[in-house]
């Protein structure tokens, strides 16, 4: 039985009872309880089932290291799986459910795995599911998927909100125990900006539980006094319930603050993710007690000695009436003393060491507790609860000397300093024989940008376990102030297997990793099978790969591995610690970036008008552009066809504002553009436009667009909608880093102008009705531009066409965009003007055989592949990409080149289809000789049209080739010229 004691409990408020449910059963606890403490107080020791064997598991720890007591918390929109009961603060109305069992926690079908444990050894998955090959997909995978995972994933949208905060400090102290408070005080007194973060809801760490004294005072009064001092200092920020989760480069730190986990729905954000930039990080992160590996060490009721002490002292919870303490160090004697002082029975302390002569053993003996030195647990008796232990000698093989009846076991295998934050960014750890633990190697710390150590460990995290050893003024960037063997009486004798000579039967019941069911025998098997690296063993056995990330299991596991390999622990080394220290919920990482503000959106000046017109938008980079303007009862395909036909027959309006617009100006601007574009821009007359291509240095086509020469020393370069920022950066790169003596200035004016394309046979009439400037063929010929006014708006009109129609692209200052669009719509009514979207734009450009960056190009295509040799200057000595295009592979006549395709049956070739050819490749896939790059239904021709790249394409006009289709068949298509409509350009040149 576990139960609530009638007195004591330093953290609970007995005047504030809290009701909660566990697996639907109503229970009661007190304010200040953790969920684990409250469950124990209700005699609920069984809290979960293990992952692989579904063994019954009770709580083993009292803090973040807990591997067993994982809960589904909350319901519906506030359901969260895998929450540790030991760190969950109890509140009235809390709903908790245990995980990984069916149909119930007490009776679980999966527990059958336990009896098949001999058939499920380390590497079982790798060994078993290989053959026969077909079984994986049809037999093994469905079963494994069914049984995989611990908690239930929530199915509803998270009801809570999360926020992120940024902060800067000189010193961040992680951990609010004695060492952390002391370090914060020292740094703050020295005038530094200090942030102190503590993961739990209480300051002071373990010291008050252990009855420690600090600088001559009782721990509790020292903590209260120090906190009061810190709270009064303006340069100190204190945060409880905030875990320093990860340390990254140059003092960047992520910390997770749980604001309203214990007050759900109170209107505050549930969690706050801190993004900190710190001059130095002091890791006062304490230490974690290690379990001992004896047979049956996972039976509910077997707990860490420090956890037993915490439950008794902090929450007045008795884990059992009779608790056997088993240890290899002095510290666990504190637990025996605490139990005895609470009026509970300690039948024996089994100490694996030959002698125990320190202060604590003496105190325990004086209280009448039986201490059996040189002894060990041969095995724990019980199933869902401890009923007793069998005692043997540690030096032997497990022959039972006698049995002790008990209902709890408190074990201590020593303490492991929490060196995680020290290691996250490359700090090294070193094995300390006296402590039997890895401690920070102060000679190899993680380095900050200035070359100084970025993280310093203090207190137990540095291996200084005694609270008493904390000296005033110590703990800031210094490690030498505290002697490492401050408390030699607590000498530990490493015990990795108990008893040391245990046979296979016992070793198969000694758990190292509780959550993932990794046993001593599994690690030894891995060693026998040749796994010598700790990183390989970890992955093969899954040791330390559960949600607790091996906080309890890693050191024991690698000690067992070292023994099996007959090498020392430092030779085996440790696995890499990676952030986060404890799991951070995805909501906190996402913060406010969800829903409408998931990412910044770019909207053109006409966006609202398009919305009112019923536009269906598509993302283009961060832009939202109208895909089509479907009318009542129209499908999107219908709308696109109507928009194309209307534009070709009457007039269409396109919002082209997203087009990149970069001004390039200066005495050397022409020379610069001649390097940037494959063609010549320096000879372009003022008042004219020219189409240009840009390549990267490898020669591959990167962007295209129309360039207009605005004045003698000024050019305006249009880029693709998605390419504006990239191309502007590209220009700046060359100007700043290569040709920095050239006098050229660039400005990205993309958002300064709204741009409207007026396209179609009636386009000129529309503009003439707007009035204000001469837009005749003579005054403004094809590929010319002019400045003036239309309907009173200041405009720059470019006669360029991406559709093959008579077309004007008109730029107005962005602030006039909406009004000018409205004016065009009004003036266009008599001529049948309708807006069209990006899909109609694409269809019309494909009908004309115009390429689109990202469709016809994919970073492996050169302009020559696309029949764009005419846009490449043969005279220029150099341009970006010229040398790259001279490489033999790119100059090869066997490259795939651009052609058009017409299906024989008029159907549309599927996106991504390949032109197949005879034979298969080494992977048994059909050989290919080309692929489709753009494929549409053409409303103008009323048939499927496509462009694509084909081996020797331009020499094969008229040939019929076969495309593969999604359904597995083929479709026949004739190779044709890629210009399907108005080959001679009659329509655009009027």
């Amino acid at each position, binding site marked *: 039985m576990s139960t609530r004691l009638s007195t004591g409990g330093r953290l609970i408020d007995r005047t504030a009872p809290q009701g909660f449910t566990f697996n639907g059963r109503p229970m009661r606890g007190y304010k200040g309880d953790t969920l684990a403490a409250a469950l124990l107080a209700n005699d609920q020791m069984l809290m979960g089932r293990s992952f692989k064997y579904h063994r019954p598991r009770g709580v083993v720890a009292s803090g973040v290291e807990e591997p067993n007591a994982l809960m589904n918390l909350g319901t519906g929109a506030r359901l969260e799986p895998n929450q540790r009961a030991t760190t969950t603060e109890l509140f009235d109305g809390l709903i908790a459910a245990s995980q990984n069992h069916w149909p119930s926690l007490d009776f679980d079908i999966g527990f059958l795995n336990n009896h098949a444990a001999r058939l499920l050894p380390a590497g079982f998955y790798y060994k078993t599911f290989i053959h026969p090959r077909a079984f994986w997909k049809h037999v093994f995978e469905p079963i494994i998927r069914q049984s995989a995972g611990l908690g239930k994933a929530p199915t509803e949208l998270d009801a809570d909100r999360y926020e992120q905060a940024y902060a800067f400090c000189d010193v961040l102290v992680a951990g609010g125990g004695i060492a952390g408070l002391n370090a914060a005080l020292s740094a703050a007194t020295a005038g530094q900006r200090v942030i102190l973060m503590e993961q739990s809801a209480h300051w002071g760490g373990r010291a008050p539980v252990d009855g420690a004294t600090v600088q001559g005072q009782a721990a509790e009064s020292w903590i209260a006094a120090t906190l009061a001092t810190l709270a009064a200092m303006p340069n100190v920020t204190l945060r409880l319930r905030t875990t320093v989760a990860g340390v990254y*480069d140059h003092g960047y730190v992520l910390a997770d603050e749980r604001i309203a986990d214990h007050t759900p729905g109170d209107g505050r954000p549930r969690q706050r993710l801190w993004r900190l930039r710190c001059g130095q990080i002091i890791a006062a992160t304490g230490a974690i007690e290690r379990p001992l590996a004896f047979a049956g060490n996972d039976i509910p009721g077997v707990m860490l000695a420090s956890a037993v002490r915490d439950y008794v002292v902090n929450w007045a919870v008795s884990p059992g009436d009779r608790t056997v303490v088993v240890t290899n160090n002095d510290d666990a004697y504190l637990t025996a003393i605490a139990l005895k002082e609470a009026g509970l029975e300690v039948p024996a302390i089994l100490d694996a060491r030959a002698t125990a002569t320190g202060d604590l053993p003496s105190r325990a003996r004086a209280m009448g507790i039986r201490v059996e030195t040189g002894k060990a647990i041969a095995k724990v008796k019980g199933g869902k609860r401890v009923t007793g232990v069998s005692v043997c000698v540690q030096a032997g093989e497990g022959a039972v000397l006698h049995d002790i009846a008990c209902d709890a076991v408190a074990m201590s295998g020593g303490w492991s300093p929490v060196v995680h934050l020290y290691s996250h960014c490359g700090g090294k750890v070193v094995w300390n024989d006296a402590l039997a633990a890895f401690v920070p190697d102060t000679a190899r710390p993680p*380095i*900050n*940008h*200035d070359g100084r150590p970025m993280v310093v460990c203090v207190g137990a995290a540095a291996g200084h376990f005694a609270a008493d050893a904390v000296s005033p003024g110590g703990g800031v960037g210094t490690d030498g102030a505290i002697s490492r063997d401050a408390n030699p009486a607590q000498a530990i004798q490493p015990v990795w297997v108990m008893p040391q000579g245990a046979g296979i039967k016992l070793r198969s019941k000694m758990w190292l990793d509780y959550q993932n069911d990794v046993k001593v025998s599994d690690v030894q098997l891995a060693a026998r099978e040749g796994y010598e690296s700790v990183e390989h063993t970890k992955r093969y056995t899954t040791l330390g790969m559960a949600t607790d990330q091996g906080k309890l299991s890693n050191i024991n596991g690698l000690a067992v591995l070292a023994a099996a390999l007959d090498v020392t622990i430092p030779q085996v080394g440790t696995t890499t610690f990676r952030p986060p220290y404890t799991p951070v919920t995805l909501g906190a990482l996402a913060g406010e970036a969800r829903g409408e503000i998931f990412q910044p959106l770019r909207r053109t000046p006409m966006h609202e008008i398009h919305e009112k017109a019923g536009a269906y938008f598509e993302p283009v980079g961060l832009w939202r552009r109208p895909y089509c303007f479907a009318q009542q009862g129209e499908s999107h395909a219908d709308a696109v066809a109507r928009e194309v036909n209307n534009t070709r027959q009457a007039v269409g309006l396109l919002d082209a504002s997203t087009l990149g617009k970069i001004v390039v100006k200066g005495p050397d601007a022409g020379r610069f553009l001649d390097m940037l574009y494959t063609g010549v821009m320096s000879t372009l007359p003022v008042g004219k436009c020219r189409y240009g291509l840009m390549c990267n*240095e490898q020669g591959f086509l990167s962007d295209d667009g129309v360039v207009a020469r605005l004045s003698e020393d000024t050019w305006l370069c249009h880029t693709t909608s998605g390419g504006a920022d990239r191309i502007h950066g590209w220009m700046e790169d060359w100007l700043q*880093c290569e040709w920095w003596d050239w006098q050229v200035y660039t400005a990205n004016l993309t958002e300064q102008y709204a741009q409207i394309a007026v396209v179609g046979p009636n386009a000129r009439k529309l503009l003439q009705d707007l009035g204000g400037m001469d837009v005749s063929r003579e005054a403004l010929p094809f590929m010319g531009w002019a400045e003036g006014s239309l309907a009173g708006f200041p405009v720059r009109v470019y006669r360029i066409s991406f559709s093959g129609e008579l077309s004007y692209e008109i730029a107005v200052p962005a602030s006039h965009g909406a009004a000018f669009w409205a004016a065009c719509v009004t003036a266009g009514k008599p001529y049948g003007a309708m807006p069209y979207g990006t899909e109609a734009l694409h269809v019309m450009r494909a009908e004309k055989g115009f390429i689109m960056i990202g469709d016809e190009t994919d970073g492996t295509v050169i302009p020559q592949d696309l029949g764009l040799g005419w846009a490449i200057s043969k005279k220029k000595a*150099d341009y970006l990409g010229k*040398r790259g295009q001279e490489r033999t592979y790119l100059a090869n006549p066997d490259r795939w080149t651009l052609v058009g395709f017409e299906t024989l049956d008029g159907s549309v070739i599927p996106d991504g289809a390949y032109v197949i050819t005879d034979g298969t490749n080494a992977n048994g896939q059909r050989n290919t000789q080309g692929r489709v790059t753009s494929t549409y239904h053409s409303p103008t021709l009323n048939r499927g049209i496509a462009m694509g790249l084909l081996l020797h394409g331009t020499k094969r006009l008229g040939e019929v080739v076969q495309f593969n289709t999604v359904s597995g068949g083929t479709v026949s298509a004739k190779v044709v010229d890629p210009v399907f409509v108005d080959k001679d350009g009659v329509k655009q040149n009027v």
Partner: protein
Amino acid sequence: MLTLECPYCGIMADETELSPGYEAHLKRYGPGSTDAEFEAYMFARKNPKGVHFERWRHAYGCGKWFLAARCTATLEVFGTYPAQTSGPPPHIIAAIKARRPGWEAGQ
């Protein structure tokens, strides 16, 4: 998440303000260069464990490109300097040698 001082703004810029530009002090090889020269310029990048020179752009700040000397192993930064130079300036070389006595420029 590095912090680098922008030599133009004089501020410590967070990596989120910066965009990387890979190895610094490359010499461009254009038309007329041999295949070996072009290959070395285009593809053969240094990847040292230790002192390295990199290009960075203060993309969400002043927009200027600058160069940084740093240690790829410890992430220690020896200094940043404007991009308009064909080699590391003497004060940067001196800062590196002060912390990496065995290091020689050109390594």
